[in-house]
């Protein structure tokens, strides 16, 4: 689908920036992430379907930000990944104290879209139906992923 970069950026840029700012906190990092999102989408513009782009951009923005959060975990100047801590806590409020320590283990070896699903449902408060439509899965598939995440967190809690 032919895409006019300028129109596309003016229409969706502010929305993508707000999304990145919300997940990453820092304005400059959010602007860098926004650029990454548009580069990804426009590089594959010929493969875009002619439908509402906001959903695609929102999803890519979320993934770009989650990748940045993962990679900065080992860079102390960037602080803690508060978003993932929140997800861990909301997955099971009783795990509050263990949440920070469990994060790496929680998302390690999980498909990338499990973190996306968790963010959409627990952070953005999308219903299971909305998440399913957003990521192109069935509602039961989404439910299973979230259930697996909860079980994994419980298992991590009982480990010595």
């Amino acid at each position: 689908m032919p895409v006019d970069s300028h129109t596309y950026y003016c229409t969706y840029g502010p929305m993508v920036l707000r999304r990145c700012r919300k997940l990453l906190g820092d304005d400059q990092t959010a602007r860098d992430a926004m650029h990454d999102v548009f580069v990804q989408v426009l590089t594959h513009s010929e493969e875009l379907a002619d439908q509402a782009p906001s959903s695609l951009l929102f999803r890519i923005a979320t993934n770009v930000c989650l990748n940045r959060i993962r990679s900065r975990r080992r860079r102390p100047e960037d602080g803690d990944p508060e978003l993932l801590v929140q997800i861990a806590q909301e997955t099971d409020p009783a795990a509050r104290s263990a949440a920070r320590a469990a994060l790496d283990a929680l998302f390690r070896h999980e498909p990338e879209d499990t973190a996306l699903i968790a963010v959409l449902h627990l952070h953005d408060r999308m219903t299971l139906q909305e998440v399913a439509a957003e990521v192109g899965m069935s509602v039961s598939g989404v439910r299973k992923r979230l259930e697996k995440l909860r079980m994994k967190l419980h298992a991590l809690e009982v480990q010595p």
Partner: protein
Amino acid sequence: MTSLPDWLVERAALDEVPPASRERIERIERAEPGELARRVAALREDNAAELARYPAAPAVAQIEARVAQARQARRRRRRRSWLGLAMSAAAVVVVVGLAALRPAADVARGAQDAPEETRVKGSPRLLAFRQVGEQVERLAQDAVVHAGDVIQLRYKAGGQGYGVIASIDGAGGVTLHYPLHDDAPPQATVMPAETAALPHAWALDDAPRFERFFFVTANDPVDVQRTLAALHALARRGDSATGSLELPSGLQQWSLRLRKADRPSTHESP
């Protein structure tokens, strides 16, 4: 507190509310009349303010330049994979043909025939530049740098198809520069054929003694996590300023060390 999540207001402002959310939005409008319209208006105001403060044209130009680069890299990768496929097919034909023609007596000494070594044209190189005001200065091995100096890296894989660029510092820190994410799959280590620059420059932090950049290359995709583990291991060692990475065979390494001065930079950061 409103029950309207931000993402749904964004979709409404763009007239792109997904079918799965239409009932929800109608329910919210009944429960909180006027709230959606108010928040949509606020978002549109914010959009206009953002585009006035940061006009789109320069950002779009930067994005389009990166898109062009990415498309070129994709085309090159596709050419490389087709070439690889064609060469593999040709190699199979040649090997099968040679085996059929080979006299039985030759087979006995076959193990002694070492295959001809494939030589790399040119060698991988990593160049560091420091931005000093409007000027750019190339940094040689052991050049003295300061906390706050803005560094940009350029690299050339010298015919090797894959690579990882990372640095260690005198405080034992490890930073990955290419690919961008430490959970990147091996395929993400593909290198452009020509000299390229990392997409971002960055300011050096106040880690003491040195900043040492490593360029790890190979003919096959590189395991990023394993390479990072080798970097962490070296960063913890006493000889981290001079030692080599312990890497699996097939990987080659180059390093460029910059010395850290004790005093802060006198260079003006942009």
